[in-house]
């Protein structure tokens, strides 16, 4: 190739590259539009809404309220109650879900005949929707039909109307529904624990218990951490079970953030209030996500 040809080639090359880049952006446009309409715009609009308070009567214009609406919402006892309920809900569901998932995964990891059947059963709840889970458990706990009357038990007030039991009851439904996912996550984690270090531990004199706590669980810690963070994010976004089982009641004892937001928006017609709550939820989720990213980064170092 002569020098001239080479420059020529480079020019065509650059030109074709530029054309490619243009095509790339063109192909991105549809996705960008969808994102803009359904994600970016509502996201920004939400921040704007947070600064405007909704008038008590429909038809009047929104009033700019600045930070006062934000502070008043975040300082309200309703918000504090909702946040407490949500955190409590996460505490009830996440550790128990991980523990049960791990337990089932360890059981199913045994090299026994017919284990595939159990694996299928254990993971099956992943194919259940929130609605189905809620209906199943709602029926189980109903005072009129299902398990309790059949057993001759008739709690009064009914479980889902009992201020102490309602949230744990919803939590159990959620744990059950997420168990399949938790089981699959933990099984995948277990299978990636190197066989040779487990064998080394056995030869080193460790019994089943020591092996599990000192080798298996530490090796699983990235998986457990991942499950904890993702589980918490799920827990903070729980809506379906609450809506179907308790509608935030009794006495607001199950009024988790998402449900609170929806009632503020649709029942109380108060978009400003709902916007502030949404931002709070967004920030919580953001922190959890950042935590996860930080940890994953560290884990990459550790694995090398």
């Amino acid at each position, binding site marked *: 190739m002569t020098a001239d040809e080479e420059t020529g080639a480079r020019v065509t090359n650059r030109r074709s590259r530029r054309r490619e880049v243009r095509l790339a952006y063109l192909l991105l446009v549809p996705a960008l539009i969808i994102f803009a309409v359904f994600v970016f715009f509502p996201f920004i609009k939400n921040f704007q809404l947070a600064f405007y308070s909704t008038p008590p009567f429909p038809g009047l214009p929104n009033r700019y309220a600045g930070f006062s609406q934000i502070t008043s919402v975040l300082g309200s006892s309703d918000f504090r109650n909702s946040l407490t309920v949500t955190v409590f809900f996460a505490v009830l569901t996440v550790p128990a879900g991980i523990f049960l998932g791990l337990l089932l995964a360890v059981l199913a990891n045994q090299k026994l005949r017919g284990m595939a059947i159990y694996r299928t059963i254990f993971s099956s709840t992943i194919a259940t929707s929130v609605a189905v889970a809620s209906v199943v458990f709602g029926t189980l706990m109903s005072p009129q039909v299902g398990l309790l009357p059949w057993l001759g038990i008739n709690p009064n007030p009914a479980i889902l109307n009992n201020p102490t039991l309602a949230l744990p009851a919803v939590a159990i439904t959620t744990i059950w529904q997420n168990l399949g996912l938790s089981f699959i996550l933990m099984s995948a984690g277990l299978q990636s624990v190197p066989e*040779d270090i487990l*064998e080394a*531990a056995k030869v*080193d004199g460790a*019994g089943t218990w020591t092996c599990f706590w000192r080798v298996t669980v*530490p090796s699983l810690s990235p998986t457990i951490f991942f499950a904890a963070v993702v589980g918490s994010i799920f827990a903070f976004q729980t809506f379906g079970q609450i809506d179907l089982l308790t509608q935030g009641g009794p006495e607001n004892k199950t009024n988790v953030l998402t449900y609170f937001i929806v009632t503020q928006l649709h029942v109380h017609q108060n978009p400003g209030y709902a916007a502030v709550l949404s931002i709070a939820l967004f920030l919580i989720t953001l922190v959890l996500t950042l935590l996860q990213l930080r940890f994953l980064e560290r884990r990459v170092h550790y694995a090398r």
Partner: protein
Amino acid sequence: MSRVALEHITKRFDDVVAVDDLTLEAHDEELLVLLGPSGCGKSTALRIIAGLEAPSEGTVRIGDRDVTDAEAKDRDVAMVFQSYALYPHMTVARNVEFPLRARRVPPAERDERVAEAARALDITELLGRKPAQLSGGQRQRVALARAIVRRPQAFLMDEPLSNLDAKLRVQTRAELVDLQRRFQATVVYVTHDQVEAMTMGHRIAILDRGVLQQVDAPQAVYERPANLFVARFIGTPPMNTIEGRLTGGADHLVFEASGVTVALPAGLASATMSASPDRVVLGVRPEDLRLDPAGSLTAKIILIESLGHERHLVVRLDDGQTVIVRQPGDQTPPRDGEAVTLSANPDSLHLFDADTEQRISS
């Protein structure tokens, strides 16, 4: 330390027989090497001793105890894995300490023994690091430290040097031998590297397809291979083998193959007469063949591989077979394609029955 014995051990995986009726003992304070090609069942045998694999048949003894049904954790042996199998989430100190912790050794004694093991393997500066921050050689030393810290009945090592580069391997080999002597350890050492086996083993057990072929001191295995497999497996370059027939009488026995006739020495001849096989295989090591103007074998040089201190001459005999001749580096090299004559040292000929592949003779 104690002896380790396998008695009529057979291990089947579905339809694969990984170990076939193996009876073998590592004496107290002995370094016994299990040698064989890939897939011959070395690791399986070792894992059966460790208790990581249950034998289909047979008995395992450690010391005077029958441990066939004992769990791995109760066997009191230490194992060094090919992958080192260090616990990635623990520091080096914790790794070395783990066997003591698992056995509930009191903390004060633990620290002392970890320090001692670290000194023995020169890893004291590494105690605070994680395995991921160590080089291959350092990991290997940590794995060894974790093994010796326990003062077990025996050490089991599965190709512990195979992940090291050639230079480090030679150095670590010597250190392992030294360590074995200092601790008067019983060691069962698995390798597929015959140089390791020859240099380290007090005795070598050679396995092929799960069957024990021969157990003996390295020199004995080299000088008197029990069968064709061992003859071809031990030695680099491998022994030349030529199939042929025996002719002549007891006082003048001759090995004959197409184009090759070799007179056998009297000792070999008398042993052969009693066996009187039809077809035999004559084996001669490359170092026992030499270029000799008065030699009886005519051949042509087809390839010369020079290693500096020696040369491997690949020559073609009249009947088309190729054999390898080892020539010391200080002798004048032949030319490529040159016609030469060879002679063999008559005292170092090996004769095997072609059907049974077993060694014939003295």
